[in-house]
């Protein structure tokens, strides 16, 4: 009698466990909220009625739509370049920048200037220290910029232009006086966006390098101030 009771109890437990397990299998855990709202679905799910979720439907792939980007900035500039001992002269150049974030940008520059006479050459009137080709100065520079003061400027009542004051620094080389010198550049600039794609720039840069044109090694600081225009693409 006792063993029959035990068998009965065991079979009940197994049957219950079986029902519970099958229930769990048919009932996805992620849909608990549905169970709360309609408890009758349990009997539907275990029956032969069509399932709510069709497993053969694959997830649709959403492609990133093409949005025009304009992280690059290309342009030209002109201004004055003060070559230490060789006078202040016009300079022309081109720049390419890549805006990494709203704060940082990478920038490449190439520029050229024709330097003048030293005071000694002008006073003595005859002996030239450099040939014409040696007097030509060209430089390239690669560096980073940081927009320290982004903002807006207001011209009149109805016009607002985005702008930024930035600092720049980089390394490059300057070819001058018959040799090429490793150059460190530091400076600051102001960018005024005339439209979202066109900007005007005002830059002050200091090009620092060592040369031995006057017979001994010395560090020269060549200050450059330029105005430029760029376009974003």
């Amino acid at each position, binding site marked *: 009698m006792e063993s029959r009771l035990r068998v009965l109890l065991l079979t009940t437990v197994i049957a219950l466990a079986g029902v519970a397990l099958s229930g769990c299998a048919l009932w996805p855990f992620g849909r608990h909220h549905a169970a709360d709202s309609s408890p009758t679905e349990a009997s539907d799910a275990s029956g032969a009625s069509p399932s709510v979720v069709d497993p053969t439907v694959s997830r649709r792939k959403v492609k990133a739509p093409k949005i025009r980007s304009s992280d690059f900035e290309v342009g030209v500039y002109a201004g004055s370049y003060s070559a230490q001992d060789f006078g202040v002269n016009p300079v022309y150049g081109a720049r390419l920048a890549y805006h990494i974030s*709203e704060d940082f940008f990478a920038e490449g520059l190439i520029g050229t200037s024709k330097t003048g006479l030293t005071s000694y050459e002008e006073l003595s009137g005859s002996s030239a220290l450099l040939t014409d080709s040696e007097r030509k100065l060209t430089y390239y520079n690669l560096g980073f910029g940081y927009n320290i003061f982004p903002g*807006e400027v207001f011209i009149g009542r109805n016009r607002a232009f985005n702008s930024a004051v930035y600092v720049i620094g980089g390394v490059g080389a300057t070819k001058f006086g018959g040799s090429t010198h490793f150059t460190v550049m530091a400076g600051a600039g102001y960018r005024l966006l005339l439209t979202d794609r066109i900007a005007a720039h005002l830059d002050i840069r200091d090009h620092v390098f060592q040369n031995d044109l006057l017979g001994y090694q010395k560090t020269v600081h060549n200050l450059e101030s330029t105005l430029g225009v760029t376009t974003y693409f």
Partner: protein
Amino acid sequence: MTSQWCTRALLPVGFLLAWATAAQPPAEKPRALDAAHFVEVSVDDPYLEMRTGPGRGYPITRVVPRGERVDVLMRRTDWYKVRDDQGKEGWVDREHMERTLLASGDRLKLDDPARRDYERSPWEIGFQTGNFGGGNVNAAYAGYAINDNLSVETGVEQALGNSSTSVLGTISLSHTFVPRWRISPFVDIGTGVVRISPKAVIVEPPLRREQLGFWGVGAKAYLSRRFMFRADYRSYLIFTQSAQNEDRREWKAGFAFFF
């Protein structure tokens, strides 16, 4: 004299400015004309904030309520320029842009040059500076990944020493051990040519063109977006026409983009 070169210098800039401002299209075009070129999304957040510029500090001048549609005109860094139904334009940040819906009802998915792409992007362009045999060196290189580990690279370097200026052109094969590591070491081996122009004040020694070979080690460190930092050491052997070959050691560091 001064005013003359000033005019000469400023003339092209003035001309370009004039051209640039003249060439720009009218600010607000009729919507129907160019709507087809832009991605149209509808606002899914309670509202979408439009700023006057692509930066966190610019003021919010317009709020587009949920359900209304905007055209996405362009992207600059992580900011998107949008135009609403009334033709008003403004800038929206990436985080908010990603919570808008396409016409299909899907969330707008935006290209994100994240680290995942860094491992997959085959092209790499970088600029470095450092020391070559005691003098300064500036270098630029481009690389193409053949597979996860191997890439072919070509570079141009300008070594600016006290006694000479050299220009190197190199081609090399680089092996990255574990590309998925955030700081990832690599080795490379390559060959190239060097043009050495000695500096001399009195007698100009002749230009030399030599072949070279090198091996190197280095590491790349992923920074963010399309950027990484890269530093390497290289040991060069210059095969000279004289009895003895020359050794040069070089280390350099810089930044690289991948795309």
